[in-house]
């Protein structure tokens, strides 16, 4: 299990990296943390002609807060996100989610940019981007593009990035002070890819959702910002309302079959997550008890 031979270029600047990507197009692969790319190369599932290593572009690393916007450089590692006080204060959902990404040794190398560009439908971070309304910033030969998260992920391992573009950062609007969140996933073992997961952000007023964003992952070919959330906003949530939202959610899902679960199981677990999320966020244990009986 040794990687095929490839050429290697250590990019010295974003411009340098873009030049290489322009020259090589699909024959090149960007190496960021390498935690998905290197195993795929070791297994010879991918055999790029050129690796463009962006690891030394320190300008792409770090979290900053300006004018109500969190900017996270593409090379910011999962471990950095976990430790960042800005993330903890202004995007706590992301912190909770990152704790579920693989294991400490992986989180020390894996980067947010790499994870988003890889676009694994079972990955936590794309769902968080949808839920948090992120803007993904890409640079290419034609300059910079700002892509809304819900337009960025287009399929299994597929994004709106062209082979000539480099994901350089993401921007997250700072969450309102009254906002609250929920993150949970069902994985067979600690750190495994989720069978189904939910990253939710909500505003609650007088026991009702004023806003509710539900980012499901591992429920289809990409993460899903559930439209059925709207059925729970500005209403008194009862078991009947929740049940209606769950059945609307069912219509939105298009889960895949894999080693761990059938589509039917994913649909079921997504509904369990919805129930648990709503029950927890509204502090209404009665909703959960009702659903599991």
């Amino acid at each position, binding site marked *: 299990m*040794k990687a095929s031979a490839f050429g290697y270029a250590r990019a010295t600047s974003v411009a340098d990296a873009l030049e290489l990507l322009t020259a090589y197009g699909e024959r090149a692969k960007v190496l960021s943390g390498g935690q998905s790319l290197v195993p795929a190369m070791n297994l010879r599932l991918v055999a790029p002609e050129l690796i463009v290593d962006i690891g030394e572009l320190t300008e792409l690393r770090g979290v900053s807060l300006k004018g109500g916007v969190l900017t996270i450089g593409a090379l910011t590692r999962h471990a950095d996100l976990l430790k960042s006080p800005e993330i903890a204060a202004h995007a706590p959902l992301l912190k909770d989610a990152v704790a579920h990404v693989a294991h400490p040794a992986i989180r020390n190398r894996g980067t947010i940019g790499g994870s988003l560009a890889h676009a694994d439908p079972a990955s936590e971070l794309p769902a968080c981007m949808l839920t948090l309304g992120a803007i993904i910033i890409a640079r290419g030969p034609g300059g910079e593009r700002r892509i809304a998260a819900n337009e960025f992920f287009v399929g299994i391992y597929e994004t709106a990035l062209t082979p000539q573009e480099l994901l350089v950062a993401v921007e997250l609007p700072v969450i309102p002070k009254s906002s609250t969140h929920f993150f949970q996933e*069902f994985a*067979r*073992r600690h*750190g*495994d890819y989720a069978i189904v997961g939910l990253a939710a952000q909500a505003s609650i007023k007088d026991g009702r959702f004023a806003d509710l964003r539900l980012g499901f992952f591992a429920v289809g070919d990409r993460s899903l910002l559930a439209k059925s959330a709207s059925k729970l906003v500005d209403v008194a949530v009862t078991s009947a309302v929740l049940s209606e939202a769950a059945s609307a959610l069912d219509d939105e899902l298009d889960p895949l079959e894999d080693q761990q679960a059938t589509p039917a*199981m994913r649909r079921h677990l997504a509904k369990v997550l919805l129930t648990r999320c709503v029950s927890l966020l509204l502090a209404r244990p009665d909703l959960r008890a009702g659903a599991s009986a």
Partner: protein
Amino acid sequence: MTSERANPQTLSALDRPNSYIGKTVPRPNLDRLMQGRGLYVSDIELPRMAHVVFLRSPHAHARIVGIETSAAKQMTGVIAVVSGRELSTVITPWVGVLSHLKGLKSAPQSAIAVDRVCWQGEAVAAVVAASRAQAEDAAEHVLVEYEELHAVTDMRTALDPATPVIHASLGDNLAFERIHDAGAVDQAFAESDEVVEAEFVFGRHTGVTLEPRAVVADWNAAEARLTIYQGTQAPHMVQNIAALHLGLKESQVRVVCKDVGGSFGIKVHIYADEMATYALSKLLRRPVKFVADRVESFNTDIHARDHRCKGKIGVKRDGTIMAFEIDDLTGIGPYSMYPRTSAIEANQVVNLVGGPYVTGNYRARARVVFQNKNVMCQYRAVGHPIACSVTEGLVDLAAMKIAMDPVEIRRRNLIADDAYPCASPSGLRFEQLSHHATLAKLVQMMDYDALRAEQAALRARNIHRGIGIASFIEVTNPSAAFYGVGGAKISSQDGVAVRVDAQGSVICQTSITEQGQGSESLTAQIVGSVLGVSMDRVRVILGDTDNTPYGGGTWASRGAGIGGEAALQAAKVLRKNILDVAAAVLQSTPSELDIVNNAVVNVVDGAPRIDLSELARIVYFRPDTLPPGIQPELMATRHFVPREYPFAFTNGVQASWLELDPDTGFVKLLKHWVVEDCGTIINPQLVDEQIRGGVVQGLGAALFEKCVYDERGQLTNANMADYLVPMSGEMPDIDVGHVVTPTLESELGAKGAGEAGTAGAAAAVTNAVNDALRPFETIITEIPLTPQVILTALGRI
């Protein structure tokens, strides 16, 4: 927690002052491993060493139409590209059968496939190059033309007339069948108040040793000698087989086994690719290294379990178990594995079902069929988890039917502790077991009644916990009855040589091997105890056919019981020899002298007379000063094999406490208990850790592990991300207790402990899951118990 039973043979050489027996002492070889200074086969490099990569079949069953190697041979670093036909000039094929497994048949298997491949992963060509990466590059340029053949994959239809026969010369796909009928089964079922039936389904799984299989074969053409560095559990077996098929004498083959990164039965077999590596070294006249990568491991390391077993139990309303009946079916891949065969697991299932219980009414059928999947063979606790899950599952189903507590039904049916010697329903002889003592101890350790109360209270709050109990018996210390009587050159005896060096330290060579169980430690503990020498002065050498006595190695829970007894007997002889010389030097008699703390002392007052170092100096350098006629022999060798009983059965009981989430189908293991009886305990810590490690392998089987094949015979989860092994985050703490019933077959009294944990863990978990599921009125008799399986049973999906 240990309870002692009276051992008639109390005062032995082991009860001496400063004895290490029964004491927890750290293993002597740990620092090397902890500092990264071990030497595993994958670490070994030799001058001129080349690396082999095997091109493996992508098809489960196909005819090889042609192999085109010319492009590959031109690539950088490539030394040779060798097909199966070319290699067959160096090595002969084999057939994995044993004569005592009557009717067992298999077809000739080659080191590299010739003409036809029979499972996805079978090697079709070897690429030898200067590096593994270069060999992999070249392997991509070997072009093989296949004509796909029908793949036989479902064991349930393998014997149907419509299913193609994999090996035409065998006539059908039936490898082995055994039928057993004891007592009056029909009458017993007729007299039962309740009869319960179920089909138990076991996932196919594999050992996943962390270090993959690895071999460095070094044919020295000038010496006409082959040195094989291999992480094997049985070096002398490898020596015999390699010599046999390469046309060499055993004296021309040396097998060296340094550190081994996990074995569990995976590394007790001889694999085709290992044979090919030996042959390639001979063909190419240079050292060749093969290290399986993880994908190859999943596709070629033996798989195990994968049984479908129908079971039936009859019970009286008072709890009396009247009869057991089983019909077991297993698919073993296209060949019976060499040289231990692939019929042993099914044979063990027949042997072991019903084993802990009194009833003598037992009928069984086991069928072993061929299929186009990877080979199956012996993996830790061979057959035991299946027999235990079927037996204990049936017992719980019977208890449920008559509304009896699971502990109570076992109390009423387990063989009484004073009923021995006796025989099992399958005719196996038990010397002395302790089912009731172990069960009583388990109930106390887990505080069974309190746990039941807690379970009831939580159930009222919609929290679903379950308790599962599983009694078991375990085959250990096998005699020649296992393999030797069937014609296999697999030694059941082991030998130990001990000698005093010139500074009074002890060197001990043993034929058992070390894969982390503690073979080195237990040997040093026994030798040190008998000789009166401190452990730091005992060095143990193992894993080298040039430098150890002849013997079986470490497998089937035999290292301590057989190798340990050989060490004990050898040390006793050496002790006598030492005292003879000392008596001559000291003008005393041997009976007046003892050895304590590395010195010869007076028996009467313990006063030191002469240090062993001084005695050794005199013996080796100044023999001229010894009295005339004295010829010191500061070396002794003894061998041992049990003769009275074919196997030393052990017994025990396990319990699982878990929580099941009916919404998600997820199971959380909260706690696990084991009480076992392995006879004399040499090192309590090592025994406990064998039990714990074994339990976790059983828990893996219960919840996670399964080789998933599609209908075309493709293994679809041959990587560690998709094949789920138990990791620390999901495993519970495991409490271990002991009852001690030494075997009287040996002075040491030790029986095996390596497989007990694996034998009963899955049964305990399955019973606990079914206990948790009681309010939902559903029963699951399939492992692994995945959320998918549980949600399906609950009707949630």
